[in-house]
């Protein structure tokens, strides 16, 4: 049981625990913040894999994944906000 196994296992298990909130979340905002959490955990898994397996290309993938996650979170939150104001 090496260190990278423990790190990736803890991050993966907590990501799948956050998936509970994505599936059973009462409001769309709960689902949104849980998806944000899972996306940042995937970035951390990629950085850990890049450091421990000596694969530099994983870091570029992690950076692009972080950028796409941020843009999608902002876009979905603007969409939900406009839906609220339309209903009002």
């Amino acid at each position, binding site marked *: 049981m090496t260190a990278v196994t423990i790190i990736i296992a803890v991050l993966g298990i*907590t990501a799948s625990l956050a998936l509970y909130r994505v599936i059973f979340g009462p409001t769309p905002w709960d689902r949104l913040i849980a998806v944000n959490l899972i996306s*940042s955990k995937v970035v951390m898994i990629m950085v850990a894999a890049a450091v421990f397996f000596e694969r530099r290309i994983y*870091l570029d993938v*992690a950076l692009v994944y972080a950028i796409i996650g941020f843009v999608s*979170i902002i876009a979905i939150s603007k969409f939900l906000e406009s839906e609220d104001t339309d209903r009002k």
Partner: protein
Amino acid sequence: MIAYLFIILGLVFIFFGTLGIIRFPDIYTRLQTSSKCDAAGAVALLVGLMVREGLDSLSLRILLILVFLLLTNPVATCNSTLCCHQRDKAMAEEKEMLKGVAD
């Protein structure tokens, strides 16, 4: 040794942040623990990985990802919190108005 200390600290923050996401009753408490998990946990974990790697082009790229996460995650959390607060305020006003009509 110091690197693994930082990594364990980050994993503890991440675990309890996710526990808060599951267990907390309200959207605002969930936003609070989610932002803590993102900021403290990710920063501690990535700093630990940087210390383990040493001064390198790889650790500079990890620093880039760290700064990007530190810039963007609070922005996303703040945006969600503001939208939730506006929605709750609008619903409370609507309820107040309906109560006035019923009276």
